[in-house]
C-alpha cells in the first residue's frame, strides 16, 4: 500500500463525513483566522528589529532577545490548534501495509501542516529584512533565516510529543510555566539568557548542524513513539481504571432531571475527553489574571468584561457546544428511553447553569482586584446563565461531531477539547454581551448599568419556557440527522 492509497482513503473519509455544509462555513472561518495568524506571525518576525529600534535597543540585540517569544508563540498556538496526524489505523493493521509506511505517512501528513508554512513565511520575512533592510551578506542572512526556520519547524514534532506523551508533557509544561512566571514577575529575566542562544546561531552559522540535529532527534522520537504505539495493545488490553463511587443522591432533589445530572457528572469525571474540558474550564477561570494584572488592561472595563465572560462562561462554552455530541456514542439509547426530549435538554441546560454558578463562586478570589471587578464578573455570570446557556444549546444543535469519549485509547486519538470551531462558535457568546455592556455603560451610570445587566440576565431565566420551546423544536427537527451523524 502506498502513500497515495492512504491519502485517497483519507480524502474519502473527509468527503463522506456528515455535515458538509456547516464544515464549509467553518472552513471559511478557519481560513480567515489562519490568514490573520500567518500575517501576524510573518509581520512579527520582520518587525522585531524595528520594534527593538523604537525601544532604543540595538535592532539585532532586540531580535535575539525576543526571538524566543516567536518560538514560544508558535509552540503554544500549535499546541492548542494543530491537529494531530490521526489516521484510520485499526483496519490497516492486519492488511499488507508495513507499519513503517503508516508511520511515515502520518509524519509526512503532519509536515504538511499549515503551521509549517507559517514558519517558512517567518523565515522568509527574516531573510528579506536581514538582506534588504540591514544589508547583511546574502549567505549569512540566508543561513541564519534557515537555522531559525528549522528551529521553529522542530516545533511540529515537539508539539506531537507534547500532545501524546503525558510523561513528557507534564514536566515540560511545569518547567515552562515556572520560567514564564519568573520572567513575568521580573524575578529573572529569561530573555536575557535566551538571547545568547539566538545570537550564537547568528554568529556561528555552523550551528545550523546542531539545530538540524535537534530537529532530526525530535523526528526520530516521534517516529519511535508512533511505531511503538501502533498496535491495538493499548486499546485491547483492559486497563482497569480505578473506579470511584460518589454519593450523588443529593442531586435527587432535581426530580426528573436527577438521573441525567448524575449521568452527566459521571460523564464529566470518567472520560479523558471530558476531563480535559474540566481542566480547560479551570484555566478559563484564571483567564482574568492576564487582564487584571497587566497595566494596559487594568483600568479598561472593556477588557474586564471580556475577562468576565471567559471566567464565568468557560465551562458553559466548552461543554455546551458539544451538547448533544457528548452522548453521541449512546444517542440511540437516549432517544428510545422514557425521556421526553425536553427533559433531556433541560438537564443539559441545568448542568451548564450549575457549572456557571460554580465558576462565579470560585471566581470570588477576584475580589482581590476590587469589589467592582467582582461585581462585573457576577453580573456577566448572570447574563451567561440567562442567555448564553441557551445560545450554547442552540449552537450545539448544529455541531454534530461524533465524540470518542475514550480517545485516549490509542496514540492516534485526537484529544483536543479546544479548536477553531470552538472559537468561531464562541463569537456570538462574547460579542453580544460586550455590545450590551458598551451600550449600557454609555447610557447609564455604572451601578445602574450593572443592575440592568443582571436584570437582563434574570429575564433570560424567566423566559425559559418559550426559549425551550424554540430549542426543543430545533433539536427535534434535527433528530434524524443527528442520529445519522453519530453512526
Amino acid at each position: 500500500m502506498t502513500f497515495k492509497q492512504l491519502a485517497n482513503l483519507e480524502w474519502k473519509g473527509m468527503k463522506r463525513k456528515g455535515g458538509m455544509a456547516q464544515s464549509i462555513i467553518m472552513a471559511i472561518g478557519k481560513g480567515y483566522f489562519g490568514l490573520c495568524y500567518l500575517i501576524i506571525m510573518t509581520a512579527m518576525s520582520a518587525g522585531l528589529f524595528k520594534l527593538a529600534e523604537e525601544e532604543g535597543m540595538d535592532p539585532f540585540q532586540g531580535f535575539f532577545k525576543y526571538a524566543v517569544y516567536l518560538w514560544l508563540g508558535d509552540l503554544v498556538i500549535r499546541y492548542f490548534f494543530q491537529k494531530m496526524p490521526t489516521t484510520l489505523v485499526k483496519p490497516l493493521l492486519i492488511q499488507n501495509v508495513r507499519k513503517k509506511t503508516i508511520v511515515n505517512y502520518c509524519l509526512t501528513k503532519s509536515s504538511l501542516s499549515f503551521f509549517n508554512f507559517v514558519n517558512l513565511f517567518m523565515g522568509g520575512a527574516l531573510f528579506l529584512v536581514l538582506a534588504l533592510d540591514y544589508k547583511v551578506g546574502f549567505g549569512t542572512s540566508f543561513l541564519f533565516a534557515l537555522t531559525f526556520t528549522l528551529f521553529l519547524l522542530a516545533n511540529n514534532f515537539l508539539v506531537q510529543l507534547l500532545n501524546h506523551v503525558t510523561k513528557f508533557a507534564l514536566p515540560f509544561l511545569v518547567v515552562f510555566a515556572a520560567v514564564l512566571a519568573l520572567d513575568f514577575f521580573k524575578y529573572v529575566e529569561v530573555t536575557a539568557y535566551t538571547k545568547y542562544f539566538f545570537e550564537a546561531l547568528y554568529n556561528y552559522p555552523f550551528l545550523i548542524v546542531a539545530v538540524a540535529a535537534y530537529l532530526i532527534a525530535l523526528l526520530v522520537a516521534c517516529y519511535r513513539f508512533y511505531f511503538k504505539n501502533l498496535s491495538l495493545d493499548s486499546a485491547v488490553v483492559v486497563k482497569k481504571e480505578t473506579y470511584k463511587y460518589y454519593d450523588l443522591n443529593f442531586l435527587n432533589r432535581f426530580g426528573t432531571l436527577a438521573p441525567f445530572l448524575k449521568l452527566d457528572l459521571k460523564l464529566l469525571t470518567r472520560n479523558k475527553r471530558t476531563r480535559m474540558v474540566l481542566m480547560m474550564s479551570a484555566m478559563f477561570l484564571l483567564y482574568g489574571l492576564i487582564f487584571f494584572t497587566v497595566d494596559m488592561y487594568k483600568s479598561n472595563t472593556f477588557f474586564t468584561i471580556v475577562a468576565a465572560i471567559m471566567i464565568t462562561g468557560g465551562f458553559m462554552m466548552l461543554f455546551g457546544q458539544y451538547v448533544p455530541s457528548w452522548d453521541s456514542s449512546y444517542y440511540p439509547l437516549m432517544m428510545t428511553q422514557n425521556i421526553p426530549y425536553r427533559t433531556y435538554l433541560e438537564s443539559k441546560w441545568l448542568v451548564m447553569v450549575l457549572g456557571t454558578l460554580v465558576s462565579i463562586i470560585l471566581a470570588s478570589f477576584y475580589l482581590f482586584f476590587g469589589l467592582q471587578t467582582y461585581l462585573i464578573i457576577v453580573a456577566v455570570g448572570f447574563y451567561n446563565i440567562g442567555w448564553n446557556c441557551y445560545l450554547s444549546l442552540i449552537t450545539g444543535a448544529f455541531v454534530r461531531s461524533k465524540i470518542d469519549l475514550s480517545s485516549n485509547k490509542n496514540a492516534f486519538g485526537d484529544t483536543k477539547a479546544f479548536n477553531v470551531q470552538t472559537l468561531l462558535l464562541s463569537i456570538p457568546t462574547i460579542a453580544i454581551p460586550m455590545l450590551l455592556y458598551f451600550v449600557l455603560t454609555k447610557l447609564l451610570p455604572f451601578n445602574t448599568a450593572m443592575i440592568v445587566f443582571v436584570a437582563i440576565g434574570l429575564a433570560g431565566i424567566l423566559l425559559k419556557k418559550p426559549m425551550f420551546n424554540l430549542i426543543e423544536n430545533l433539536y427535534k427537527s434535527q433528530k434524524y440527522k443527528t442520529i445519522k451523524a453519530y453512526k
Partner: protein
Amino acid sequence: MIQVENLKKIYDGNTVLDIQGLEIPIGESFGLVGNNGAGKTTFFSLLLDLIEPTQGFIKNNNVIVNKNEDWKTFTTAFLDDSFLIGYLTCEEYFYFLGELRNQAKQQVDAFLLTYADFFNNEILGKNKFIRDLSKGNQKKVGIIGTLIGNPKVVILDEPFANLDPTTQIRLKKILRNIADTKQTTLLVSSHDLNHTFEISDRIVCFERGRIIKDIDTKQYSFEELTSFFDVVV
C-alpha cells in the same frame, strides 16, 4: 398492539423497506428472520423512531411513533452497543434505566438477582466500566437492561449473535418465559431460524424489504419450517 400501515423507507431511490400492512397483537412473541440487508434493522429503527419513514407510519399501542413520544414509556430496545453507556458500571447502567422507568434501586436489585445465572458471575459486583467488558458480556448487559421495569414492548436485534452457547440457551429460556406470560410483546430478529423457532409464536421473513412469509410456529414442526424458509434463509 403494533400496527404497520403502508410503510416505506427509501434511501436515494432504493426501497429498503416496503410493508403494506402488519399487525402484531399484544403479548405476541414475534420472530423476524431474513438475510443480511433484508430490512430487519431498518424496521426496528423505524419502530423506535430512529429514522424517518419515507411513507406510511407505525402505531405502537395507538401511538404513531414519529408523531408522538409516548411510546417511549412502555417500549425498550437493544439494537447494538450504541444502547450502552460505556463509562458506567453495569449496576449504574441498570439503576439509570431503572430511574427512567420509575424503578427504585431495591426493585432493580431484586430484578437483577433473578438473572444471576445469566450473568454467570461476570457482570455484577465487578466494579468494571461497561466499556471494559468483552463484547459478549456487554451484550448481556444490554439485553437484561431492556427487561427492567416490565416494558410492554421489547425489541431485540440479533440477541443471540456473539453469545456463547451456554448463554444462548439461557437467553432462550428467559425470552420463552417472557413470551409465555403473554403480557409483553417481544420482537426478536435473528439470522438463525433455530433460535427464533424456539422463542417465537410467529415468524415473519423479510426479503429485500418485503414480507415473504408469515407463519404461526405452532402449526408446523421445525423441519417443515426449515423447508419453508430453505429458499431464502
